[in-house]
């Protein structure tokens, strides 16, 4: 039967017994129940990751030996441990890592971030996102393939050569070589990131240039249309001018015609008067 809730004191006392190596069989059962209580939160995180197309490997249960060692190594209590349940995603490069971490922050609002790339832990570089679901932390390890390669070497050599290698101990030569390899990976990934940023900037510049060219083409077209329109207006104005000239000329002609008519009428009146007078003289 899995317990729904555990008191912090109960869990921390269990942690103390694990730390001291004095745990009993019932302690292992209690720890197992505690692990299983993270199942729902773990499922939520893994389901979200799969829905976004990621292929995480989930760790349903952190081993007892790893929990006990972590309690001995660090000054945290068992109830504060954030990686009881978790998963790991290995991506191709640091650019993909950046993108995925940004997406995870959006998927799990309030998630905390442990970025061990600029400040490595004994050479270990990765990003850990701690999502919290209903009060239960679930750790999502996001590693690049090179960071993962380094972590595998460090962990395996800790297993078979010296358990302290992983935490900065072990033979000097081996530790130094692992340190140099970690630095080389960091330098390469810095270059990789800078290169990607340069490519992105170049794309922005190319896009801007393309937009500028496009804008210029629009401007040119608009200018041509304006010029065309302007010429048309000019033509209209010219026609208007001609029409006005015509109107004035017509008006002038009309005046002339009226004047001529008046002269003619006057002459006609005079002619009629003259004829009337001549007619009277003949009678």
């Amino acid at each position, binding site marked *: 039967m899995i317990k729904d809730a555990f008191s912090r004191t109960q869990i921390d006392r269990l942690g103390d017994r694990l730390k001291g190596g004095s745990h009993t*069989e019932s302690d292992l059962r209690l720890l197992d129940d505690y692990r*299983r209580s993270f199942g729902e939160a773990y499922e939520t995180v893994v389901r979200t990751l799969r829905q976004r197309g990621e292929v*995480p490997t989930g760790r349903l249960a952190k081993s007892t030996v790893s929990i006990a060692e972590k309690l001995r190594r660090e000054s945290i209590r068992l109830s504060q441990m954030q990686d009881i349940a978790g998963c790991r995603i290995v991506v191709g490069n640091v650019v993909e890592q950046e993108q995925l971490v940004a997406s995870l922050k959006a998927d799990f609002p309030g998630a905390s971030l442990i970025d061990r790339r600029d400040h490595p832990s004994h050479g270990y570089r990765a990003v850990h996102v701690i999502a919290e679901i209903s009060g239960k932390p679930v750790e999502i390890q996001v590693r690049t393939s090179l960071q993962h*390669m380094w972590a595998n*070497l460090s962990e*395996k050599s800790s297993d078979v050569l010296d358990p302290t290698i992983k935490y900065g101990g072990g033979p000097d030569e081996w530790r130094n070589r692992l340190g140099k390899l970690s630095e080389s990976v960091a330098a390469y990934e810095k270059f990789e990131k800078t290169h990607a940023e340069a490519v992105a900037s170049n794309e922005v510049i190319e896009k801007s240039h393309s937009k500028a060219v496009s804008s210029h083409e629009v401007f040119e077209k608009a200018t041509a249309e304006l010029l065309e329109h302007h010429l048309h207006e000019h033509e209209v104005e010219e026609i208007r001018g001609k029409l006005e000239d015509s109107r004035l000329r017509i008006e002038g002609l009309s005046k002339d015609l009226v004047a001529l008519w008046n002269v003619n009428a006057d002459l006609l009146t005079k002619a009629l008067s003259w004829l009337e007078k001549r007619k009277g003289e003949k009678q």
Partner: protein
Amino acid sequence: MIFLIEYNRGKGKIVTFRDFDDSQRREAEDSRLGIELDLNRKGRKGIDHEVVLLEAASRDALLRTHGRYFKDLDDLLKSASQQGDGAGVSREPEFGAEAGR
């Protein structure tokens, strides 16, 4: 799929490997606890063994993210060397000289 792995750290070898369908999660969890209880009954031997449950799309996916359980140090050094060459990461030619000791 769910994978149950009992790993002997000192030897760098898998002791127990079982796979379960996703629907057998409870069974996988019970099996994991069973191994741990058994190790505990045998004394301090259990301390050196990691007993973990991992869930992956396939065995290949598991190998990709948790290769440490499956490969020995020489294999990891070789693949690191190839990967480093591909990425342009400087490599130490004699890095693997102490491997396997």
